[in-house]
């Protein structure tokens, strides 16, 4: 059994570099937007529905708010939401999955596995939106929904990885050396399991950022007037034929981010989702 520290970008090929450049650009613009733009993202700062150019690089929306400022203010929120929506379930789910893969308590492991499989049986967006419906929309509801659903996928991956590792030679060796089971789990199993789930986490980031904006697009995510990509696209829908910029710029920012992360994930892990 080879130990592969997979999350180190050992093979930074062209697609990973392009992806990294795109992601970096979005991050930099999102962080620096208060310095780059004199406008308030939630207040009217010009005439309504002004075309791109001049005072307003991306134009203004139906309420006279600056689309450039809003697009990158939204970027900050979406990136933070997706980061939390990936990392919290990753940490918790991986730990739980690794414990389930190594525990000797068959019944407990079986019951947990049933819950994990049940959650994973639901279409992702569908269960997240259902949880948001009961706990209430907004940033908190969105994060609760993402965390409650997403941990199960990490637990599934971590468990199957831990099951393989449990029988690996180097784990066998720790048993011979008489290490405690806790030490084996924390020092030898978990690091290897985490390298696997972190590799998945990067492609999961794409799914989560799309889910966050989808829910806001449907009106079940971030509440207006807070700028968010999906919510902005929903706002601009009615003006799509004439004032395309309200929809197209936040959409481009969202797609570029997702594509950048996807290329990065693809390049870093050297394989891609859908292929085993």
């Amino acid at each position, binding site marked *: 059994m080879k130990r592969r520290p997979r999350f180190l970008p050992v093979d930074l090929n062209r*697609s990973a570099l392009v992806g990294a450049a795109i992601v970096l650009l979005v991050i930099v613009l999102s962080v620096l937007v208060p310095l780059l733009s004199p406008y308030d993202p939630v207040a009217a700062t010009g005439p309504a529905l002004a075309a791109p150019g001049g005072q307003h690089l991306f134009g203004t929306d139906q309420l006279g708010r600056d689309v450039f400022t809003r697009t990158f203010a939204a970027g900050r929120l979406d990136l933070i939401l997706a980061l939390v929506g990936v990392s919290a379930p990753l940490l918790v789910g991986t730990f739980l999955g690794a414990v389930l893969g190594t525990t000797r308590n068959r019944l407990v492991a079986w019951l947990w596995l*049933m*819950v994990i*499989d*049940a*959650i994973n*049986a*639901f*279409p*992702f*967006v*569908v*269960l997240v*939106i*259902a*949880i*948001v*419906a*009961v*706990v*209430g929309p907004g940033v908190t509801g969105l994060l609760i929904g993402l965390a*409650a659903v997403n941990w199960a996928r990490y637990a599934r991956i971590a468990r199957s990885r831990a099951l393989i590792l449990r029988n690996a030679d180097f784990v066998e060796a720790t048993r011979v050396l008489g290490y405690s089971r806790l030490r084996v789990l924390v020092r030898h199993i978990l690091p290897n399991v985490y390298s696997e789930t972190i590799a998945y986490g990067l492609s999961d980031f*794409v799914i989560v950022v*799309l889910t966050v*904006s*989808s829910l806001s*697009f*449907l*009106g*079940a995510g971030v509440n207006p007037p807070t700028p968010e990509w*999906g919510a902005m*696209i929903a706002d601009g*829908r009615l003006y*799509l*034929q004439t004032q*395309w910029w309200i*929809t197209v710029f936040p*959409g481009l920012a*969202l*797609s570029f981010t*997702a*594509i950048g*992360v*996807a*290329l990065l994930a*693809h390049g870093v892990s050297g394989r*891609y*989702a*859908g*292929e*085993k």
Partner: protein
Amino acid sequence: MSSGASPETARTTPSSAGVKRLLARTLRHLSRAALGALGVLLVTFTLIHLIPGDPVEILLGDAATEELVAKYRQILGLEGSLPQQFARYLASVAQGDLGTSIQTGQSVNSVVARTLPMTAWLIGVTVLMALLMALPLGVAAALLRGTWFDHAFRVATSVSLATPSFYFGLLLILLFAVRLGWAPVAGYQPGFPGNLQYLWLPALTMSGALVPILARVLQSSIAETMEQEFVETAIVRGLPAPVLVWRYLLRPSLAPTISLLGYILGQLLSATVVVEIVFNLPGMGTALVVEGVLLRDYPVVQGIILIFALIVVAVSFLSDTVSGWLDPRTRLS
């Protein structure tokens, strides 16, 4: 491994032990599906208990009278202890009763019956359309592995997967419905074949997420099949290209795609929710969002997501079973 055997010879000589193994496998899949359904019911049941505070108070607010509170408790199934509630929930679902809407008083069954056919049509058209695009793409990408086409294929599928379906849908509306006038902007009329006019653009939107998955799985499984000896044998035998591609390349490669059907359907159902809203289609996704989530109609939410998950469980069971039949090699090893 029986990788050297031709798929034909393996199929024409099914041993009784092989059939027995197949039956045992199917039974195992069936019990797993039953457990899966039970777990799904546990999740939908738990959902209503995730509401912070008392759901009846939240729903009724100041209008709460003792009578109304009792009535809503009964509708939401909140009487008695948790195990009692769960038992009652299981019993009513087993009898085919999904509950009653608290906003309209309609049965959730009638909401599902009204919206399911349209969603089924959308998914059917999407799958057909996606297969028509993914099959040639996957075959080409597998045959041209390592060439510029393969690289373009990888980048294009990554880009397509990362494009949000609601954005893609809006752009397609702008191009095909508004500029070219080839499709209605939104809306739906039931009845085949007239409904296809309303469905092809939403189906194309959903294909944007489905084609990359299908084509990639096909590409990698065809590439794997090409390394098998029976393919080499077929080439040496000088079989005509269509026979070679279908019987010796595609058929043995379809099993991985079919075993992914449950996962793919999950993705499709997620996409339906968004795409139905974009195109204003009166399907289950629209019902979930508009009648359930936005109106906080908990029984409607519970009922619809239950149907969604049960469909996924059922299709996963079917695809596990069928992929076992389709690829005779799984019977042997």
